[in-house]
C-alpha cells in the first residue's frame, strides 16, 4: 500500500467530485481500479482510475452515495491530505491489438464513465463512441473532454440529454454494427440488460468487457 498526497479536489456537482493525487511511481493500465481510503483507515473502497496512463497525476471520480461511508468521508479530504492507494487491480482493459483497428462503443452509467474517460484520454486516436446514461444533465461529468459527436448523453429523468431515456432504450432503437467492440461499466442492472441487447445484435462480449460497480 502506498500513501499519495492529495493535490486538489474538483467538485463537479453537489455530490460528485474528482480527487487529484500525486502519482509518485504508480503505474497502471487504463481501465484498472485502485482501492482508496484515508491513511491508516481500514475503510477502503474500489475506484476506477479517471486520469490517463500518461498524466503525471492520478485522478478518481467519486459520487457520494446516500448513507455511504467512504464516498462521504473522501469528499471532505483537502489538498495536502494523504490517502492510501492499493492496486492497480482489474482486468477491464483494452486489447492493444484492437486499439488502432476497431470501432469501440463505451457504455456507462453514472460514475461508470470514469474508466472510459481514462481510455479515451490515454488513446485519443481511437475510433469510439461513448454512451452515457444518467438521471439528469448535470451528471454528464466533464463531457467537454470528449470531442464533438463522440459523446451521447442519455438522460432518464429529464429531456435535456441527446436522448431521453435509458441507455438500454437507446441501444434497442439504434442497433450497433456487429463488429463493434463494446465495453460496459457501472450499474449491474444496466450491464445485464445491455449485454442481452448487444448479444441479440450479434456482438460477442468477453470477460474483460464489463465492470460492475454495484
Amino acid at each position, binding site marked *: 500500500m502506498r500513501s499519495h498526497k492529495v493535490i486538489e479536489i474538483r467538485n463537479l456537482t453537489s455530490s460528485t467530485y474528482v480527487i487529484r493525487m500525486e502519482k509518485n511511481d504508480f503505474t497502471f493500465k487504463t481501465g484498472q481500479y485502485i482501492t482508496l481510503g484515508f491513511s491508516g483507515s*481500514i475503510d477502503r473502497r*474500489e475506484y476506477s482510475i479517471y486520469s490517463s496512463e500518461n498524466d503525471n497525476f492520478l485522478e478518481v471520480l467519486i459520487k457520494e452515495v446516500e448513507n455511504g461511508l467512504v464516498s462521504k468521508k473522501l469528499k471532505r479530504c483537502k489538498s495536502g491530505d494523504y490517502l492510501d492507494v492499493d492496486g492497480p*487491480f*482489474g*482486468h477491464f482493459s483494452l486489447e492493444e491489438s484492437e486499439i488502432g483497428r476497431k470501432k469501440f462503443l463505451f457504455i456507462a452509467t453514472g460514475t461508470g464513465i470514469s474508466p472510459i474517460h481514462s481510455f479515451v484520454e490515454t488513446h485519443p486516436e481511437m475510433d469510439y463512441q461513448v454512451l452515457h446514461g444518467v438521471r439528469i444533465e448535470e451528471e454528464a461529468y466533464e463531457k467537454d473532454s470528449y470531442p464533438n459527436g463522440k459523446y451521447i448523453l442519455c438522460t432518464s429523468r429529464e429531456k435535456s440529454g441527446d436522448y431521453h431515456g435509458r441507455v438500454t432504450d437507446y441501444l434497442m432503437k439504434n442497433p450497433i454494427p456487429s463488429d463493434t467492440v463494446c465495453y460496459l461499466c457501472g450499474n*449491474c*442492472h444496466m*450491464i*445485464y440488460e445491455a*449485454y442481452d441487447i448487444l448479444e441479440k445484435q450479434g456482438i460477442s462480449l468477453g*470477460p*474483460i468487457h*464489463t465492470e*460492475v460497480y*454495484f
Partner: protein
Amino acid sequence: MKKVAFKTLGCRLNQYETDALASQFQDKGYELVQFDESADVYVINSCTVTHQSDHKSRNFINQANRRNKDSVLVVTGCMANNAKEELESREEINYVVENDQKTSVFSLVEAHFGGEIIHPSKLNADLFSYGATDKGFHTRSMIKIQDGCDNFCTFCIIPSVRGRAASRPLQDILTNIREVISHGAKEIVITGVNIGRYEFEGYQFDDVVEQILNLEGDFRLRISSIEPDGFREKFIGLLNHPKMTPHLHLCLQSGSEPVLLQMRRMYTAKRFKEIVQTVRAKNPDFNITTDIIIGFPNESEEDFSATCDTIKELNFGHVHTFKYSIRKGTRAERMPDQVDERIKTERSEVLRNLSDEIKVNYRKSFIGKTQSVLVEKIDGNIANGYGEHYIPVQFTGENIEKNQFYKVKITDIEDGSDPVLKGEIL
C-alpha cells in the same frame, strides 16, 4: 522421538501446504500422529472462507489444547491472517503464523525446542519454498504453482488473506515435479489459489501444463480447482493429452447471469456452458465438478432456479454447495437484501438432493467401462483408489501394490449418495 499432528481445513492448497510441512517434520525425525492423539506439536492449518470454517478452526484449537496442554500449538492458514489479533491473544496458542510465512513453521518449532522464541513476523516470507510432499498424507503429489488472487469476487475473503497473485518460476515447478516423479510419484496435482492466472516471464498457465505433460515418466497430471475465466483455447487442446486426467473442478458459483455479475465473476453462465460443451465434445464422459454458493445477497427464486437448471443441464460429476455467509471486509457484506437463513437452508437441501442424484447417475455411466486406478489403500486383498476421472474405485486382487496403476473394468456401484465404483482387474 517427538510427535507432530496436523489438522487441515479448507482448500487443496492448504492440503498441499500441510503435506509439505508434514514431510519436512518427518524428514527431520518427527513421528506423524493422528490429530486425536497426544502430540508434542499441533499444527492447525486453518480456513476462514465461511463462518463454518472459522467455527471448525476454533474447535480444533480447543481440542489440541485439551489433549496436551504442554504441546506447542501453531495456528497458520487464512484464519491466522484474518483473525490474527484474536488468535494472538489466546494464551494456549504459541504461534500464529500468517500464510506467507507458513513455509517456516518447522524452523519456528525447532527454534522453540531449542529455547529460542522467534516472533513469526521475523521469519522469511516465501510462498513457494516447500520441499517435496513425498511423505505426508497422500499418494497424489501436489505441486504449488501459484498463490494469491487479484480477482476480488465480491463474496470472497481470499484476496485479503492470501494476498496478491504470485507465480512460482516455471523452472522451479519443473524441477520439483521431476524430483517427485523420481521418488515414485504417479499422480501430479497442480495447485494454487487461482492457477489459471499463472504468469511468469511470459509463460502462462497453459504453457506450464504443456511443459509438465512433456516431462518423461510414468505419471498422470491432474488440475485442481480452476476458475473458468483464466485459460485460453490452448489449454482446452491439452485436455486430451494421454497424461492428462479427464477431470476439472471448474467453479461456477451460480447459474444466474445477474448473480454472477453481482459476484463480479469474470465469466457468464453462457460462457461456462460453452466451455463444458467444448470439453465434452471431445470427451463425452469428462468429469466436471463445481462449487455453488447458495443464497448470495439478492438471490431470487428465479436466480436459484437458473442455478438448478444449469446443474441439470451440465451433468456435473459432483457439486460442492456452500451456503453464503458474510465475510467482513468484502463488498457483498455491504449489499442490501441478504437472503434469510431459512431460505438458504431450504435451497441447500434442494440443491444437495439434485446434485446427489446427478452424481450417482454420472458414476453409474461408468459401469462397463475401464478405469486406470491408482491404488491408495489396501486392506487384505481389497484395493481402493481413484480412476483417471477422479471417481473412487474399489477392486480385489492378489499382491496388489500401493501407488501403482491397475486397469479395472467397472462392474457395479455401491448404494448411497457418494457411491464407490466396484470393478475387476483386467
